[in-house]
């Protein structure tokens, strides 16, 4: 049992300040989307307007960027999830020296600056006559997003009971069946988390995309170029929509988590 202490109010205050520090900038950014003023700011308040949303929806370049972003994100998830999962299963069966070497190679992309990944991908494929474009952005992003998937799946594999596989094989299951019916179902939560994280990472990605995109826009690149070349609150309108989307995902995740906690608690009571 935690006991209350005198210093607790200090911590509570600090926590509140930290949360404000994290959230108020986003509120300011979102609020500016409704301010009837050309330069995005919430102060001075010139009146409520929705016209920035109208301008945003009328911007065809934004819609192209939006579709490109989705396309890249889906492609990245589709490629990096199998790769990361295969990598995790493979490294889980390795031991000793080879394990640490392969492991280092697998996590290295996470610790490599995005600019380096972007430039090296661009140079490599360019040597073979493959020009810059969204396909290179996908490959560059896969190289480090697969690492995240690998780490998640590897962590899940630690709790896997090998005896189940052996039992299935002894009972005459084929290797494909063992994989499909025993190993993969155990890994699904990690694979799902990997896909979600990969999707978000890809949408957010800027550094790798900047060097590999060629002339294509993604949302981050679009926002970036807008901020540099004369901003209007349309960017704030876009930001607000993206934050709202994040918020919905976060709340859905939390509701889902609480429901499963409650279900587990109820099962515990019954059992």
């Amino acid at each position, binding site marked *: 049992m935690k006991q209350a202490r005198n210093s607790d109010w200090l911590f509570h205050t600090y926590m509140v300040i930290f949360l404000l520090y994290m959230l108020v900038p986003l509120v300011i950014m979102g609020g500016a989307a409704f301010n009837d003023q050309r330069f995005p*700011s919430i102060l001075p308040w010139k009146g409520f307007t929705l016209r920035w949303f109208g301008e945003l929806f009328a911007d065809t370049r934004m819609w192209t960027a939006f579709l490109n972003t989705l396309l890249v994100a889906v492609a990245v998830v589709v490629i990096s999830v199998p790769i990361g999962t295969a990598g995790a299963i493979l490294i889980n*069966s390795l031991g000793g020296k080879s394990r640490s070497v392969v492991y280092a190679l697998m996590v290295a992309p996470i610790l490599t600056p*995005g600019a380096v990944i972007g430039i090296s991908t661009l140079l490599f494929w360019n040597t073979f006559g493959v020009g810059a474009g969204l396909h290179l952005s996908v490959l560059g992003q896969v190289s480090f997003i697969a690492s995240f998937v690998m*780490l998640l799946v590897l962590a899940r594999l630690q709790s896997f009971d090998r005896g189940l596989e052996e039992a299935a094989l002894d009972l005459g299951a084929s290797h494909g069946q063992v994989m499909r019916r025993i190993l993969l179902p155990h890994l699904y939560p990690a694979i799902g988390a990997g896909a979600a994280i990969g999707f978000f990472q890809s949408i957010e990605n800027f550094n790798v995309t900047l060097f590999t995109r060629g002339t294509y826009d993604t949302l981050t690149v679009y926002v970036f170029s807008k901020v540099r070349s004369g901003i209007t609150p349309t960017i704030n309108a876009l930001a607000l929509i993206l934050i709202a989307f994040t918020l919905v995902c976060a709340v859905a995740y939390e509701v889902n988590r609480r429901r499963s906690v409650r279900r587990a608690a109820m099962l515990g009571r019954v059992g």
Partner: protein
Amino acid sequence: MKDLINRYGTGLTVLFVGLTAFWLIVLVILPNIYLFENSFRPYLPVVDMGGPKDFYSFDNYLKFFESPIHIRVFFGTILYSSIVTVICFVIAYPVAYYLAKVASLSMVPTIFLLLFIPMWVSEVLRSFAWFIILSFNGPLNLTLLGLGVIEDKIRWMTGFRSVMIGLVYTYVLFMLFPVYNAVQSLDTNQIEASEDLGAPWWRTHWRVILPHCKPGIASGSVMVFMLSAGSILVPTLLASTNSRWFTEIIQQWMFESQDWNTGSAYAFLLLILCTVFVSAVMGLFKVKLSDIAK
């Protein structure tokens, strides 16, 4: 390998190995080798490629070492990224400790939910938020003026001040989460034992909690430093003319000069910097790579 074949058969093993090999060789190793190789070659028009002028030299790297400005920017990037890393730790540690050991268990998920929002909002928007806040006629100046704290508007975006403000805001959560995990894994009894034995609060932190958190601190520091030094968005949006970041120079070579060879030499220097930093942290904190990348 034999183990894999026994468990999943030859077909699936080939699939696993094939996918992993594609990832590690085609997407990771070869591009970096090409980056390295290209950084030693001159920037030539297409017709001269493979011709007599196309030979290996250190010219691209000499461009760096002969330019005092670039060297200064390089070390400036290291210095300010290190400061950002330290500030992030100072800000995040009390929060991590609070969440792990002080806050009531029912509150923690809600707080995490609130923290996930800025975490999943993209970097470009997080720096854009500060671009608005710090602008000359922005909310920060107007609020401070209104409160009477300052008499004249402050030009926030000069020097590295605004870059550091932006970087700390953008990356502090990458410090918070690993440190939180580390504090959380410490048995609360150890803290109580230390207090029962009469240690003042700071000694409990210094001798019990912090040593236990070393892997978390190492992991957070590596992430924050690497992301800061490699950041393109924050310095470009929040920097002024007198504060340049190393990635901006890489961008100049790549896009303005279209000199990809010198660009790759500079990118390689950035890669070396990050490798050295990761190794240094691993040595200093005596942790393994698997502790850092989790």
